[in-house]
């Protein structure tokens, strides 16, 4: 009897960000290469992924990556949609699927969303912030676009390990918090190092005429942190969890305003 069913190749890789391995399965070798390049430094050999996604590739069309993201939960399944992808994830089964065109941006958005959902339940979060490690301590530099995240990253001296210039990854651990490197880049277009360290301080960035660090009242710190958190889900429980996570963070981590001029001397204050 001749073989009637053509054999389909399956490729897979594990992308591990923030100690959370996510397996991605695809039937397209070229897409696998795209992912290997996109997540260089974050592709691991972990066998037990916490989440597994099957990617179904669609032909390139008029997908709009700038369209609004919708993230909602129903009957234990998360539904994620944007102009350029549709995805579903069932936490209880640790599995999901993504339908997108062969590009690295759509899956990048899915990963960010999934990480925010997982972290929200664990007291952590993703935040619009650069972050870096110096002397074994992590420092977070939060701010909106143009606040100086990329600038301060560019100015970092050689003894500083950059974790990201755009999206910082924060996990709760014991009595404190740990920052992890992320492949989520901003203007610097350089992946962060895949390492982690306990967070020593959060700085709210502001450009000015001199370098100085000033204390920030706790309420303002919480407001500023909340304003910079990445959060997508239309889900009351997770909104509340994220709100409380921000307050716990500002209770336990020093938060200051860092005003700086764009030159390397600002790093003399960060130790």
């Amino acid at each position, binding site marked *: 009897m001749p073989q009637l069913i053509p054999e389909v190749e399956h490729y897979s890789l594990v992308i591990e960000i923030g100690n959370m391995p996510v397996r991605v399965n695809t039937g397209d070798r070229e897409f696998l290469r795209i992912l290997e390049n996109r997540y260089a430094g974050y592709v691991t050999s972990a066998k037990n992924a916490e989440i597994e996604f099957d990617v179904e590739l669609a032909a390139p069309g008029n997908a709009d990556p700038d369209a609004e993201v919708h993230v909602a939960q129903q009957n234990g399944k998360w539904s994620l949609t944007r102009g350029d992808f549709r995805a579903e994830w069932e936490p209880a089964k640790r599995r999901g699927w993504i339908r997108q065109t062969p590009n690295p941006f759509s899956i990048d958005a899915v990963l960010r969303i999934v990480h925010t959902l997982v972290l929200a339940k664990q007291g952590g979060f993703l935040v619009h912030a650069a972050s870096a490690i110096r002397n074994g301590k992590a420092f977070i530099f939060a701010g909106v676009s143009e606040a100086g995240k990329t600038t301060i990253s560019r100015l970092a001296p050689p003894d500083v390990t950059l974790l990201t210039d755009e999206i910082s990854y924060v996990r709760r651990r014991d009595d404190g918090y740990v920052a992890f490197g992320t492949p989520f880049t901003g203007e610097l277009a350089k992946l962060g190092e895949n390492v982690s360290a306990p967070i020593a301080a959060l700085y709210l960035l502001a450009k000015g005429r001199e370098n100085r660090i000033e204390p920030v*009242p706790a309420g303002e710190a919480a407001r500023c942190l909340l304003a910079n958190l990445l959060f997508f889900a239309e889900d009351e429980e997770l909104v509340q969890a994220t709100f409380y996570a921000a307050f716990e963070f500002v209770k336990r981590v020093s938060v200051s305003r860092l005003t700086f001029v764009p030159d390397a001397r600002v790093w003399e204050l960060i130790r």
Partner: protein
Amino acid sequence: MSSLYLARNPRVAARSLDGEMMIMSGRDSTLFTLNQTATILWKSADGSTPLQVIVEREICPAYEVEASEALRDAETLARELAGHGILRISEQPIVPENPAGGESR
């Protein structure tokens, strides 16, 4: 006596930090920072104490205002907070939906 009763909406998240009461709507993630009077209403909104009693006990002594004027302002504020989904208001005592919800930590 005003028969208005107030209760915290358990679907919001609330935290007090350095005397500032901040509330986030679970519905649309809007963040509110309450002023002092709104904070008094929030903290006193147990569903069973009439607004008039809250005003007489908490607001009048704090601000040295006439009771009728304070009550009028408090009613306006309570309705505004209800409009944002922060408080629930009713002309009957309100049975809490979830006693643990809408914490005022």
